[in-house]
């Protein structure tokens, strides 16, 4: 049973367009949702994160929209650039335990064409 689901599996957008990456989760105790960006041959790097008390988090061109009732969130990348081409992972944790075990989705491969 996959706890965190991502769609689409892959996405191609033109430079300047907005890319929308989707994520949904099962566990209602999840309250922290980081998005990681990974380039080939590198480890995932934190891009942006949101906690369940918020419904939106913005950082430059990257915005997370969070719907707690539907257990869904999305990452919007506006004015997409070729350098944004990477794999994006949605993750979740229930950090009340204090030890922060992350549950990852399978990732969305984003290609931004110039």
């Amino acid at each position, binding site marked *: 049973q996959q706890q965190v689901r991502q769609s689409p599996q892959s996405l191609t957008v033109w430079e300047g367009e907005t890319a929308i990456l989707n994520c949904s989760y099962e566990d209602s105790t999840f309250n922290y949702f980081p998005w*990681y960006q990974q380039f080939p041959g*590198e*480890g995932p790097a934190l891009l942006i*994160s949101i*906690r369940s008390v918020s419904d939106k988090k913005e950082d430059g061109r990257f915005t997370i929209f969070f719907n707690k009732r539907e257990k869904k969130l999305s990452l919007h990348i506006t004015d997409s650039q070729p350098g944004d081409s990477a794999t994006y992972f949605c993750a979740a*944790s229930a950090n009340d335990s204090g*030890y*922060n075990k*992350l549950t*990852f989705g399978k990732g969305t491969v984003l290609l931004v064409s110039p």
Partner: protein
Amino acid sequence: GPKVLQIPSHQIIDMGQMVTLNCDPVSNHLYFYWYKQILGQQMEFLVNFYNGKVMEKSKLFKDQFSVERPDGSYFTLKIQPTALEDSAVYFCASSLTGGGDTQYFGPGTRLLVL
């Protein structure tokens, strides 16, 4: 940003042998993690480690697995003996504090068990 290093980047061994994966976490971090990613699958939590002890482990963390960080040096994952299904990319991560804090990932060790 803060860097986590992993040594080696690739390892090929015969089934039944022992392997040690090394992680050099961010210098002032206190929490350490291992994740496993099989090709085409999501990254999955194996174990977290704090104050010299395993705090939580998943069902993937078999009896053949062990972790330690002797004298504040490398954080290691040892598999003894290895099995074919241990072939995967193993990512190390570290964070300064526990719940909800950013985990910084290394580039991964690609382990192939023949």
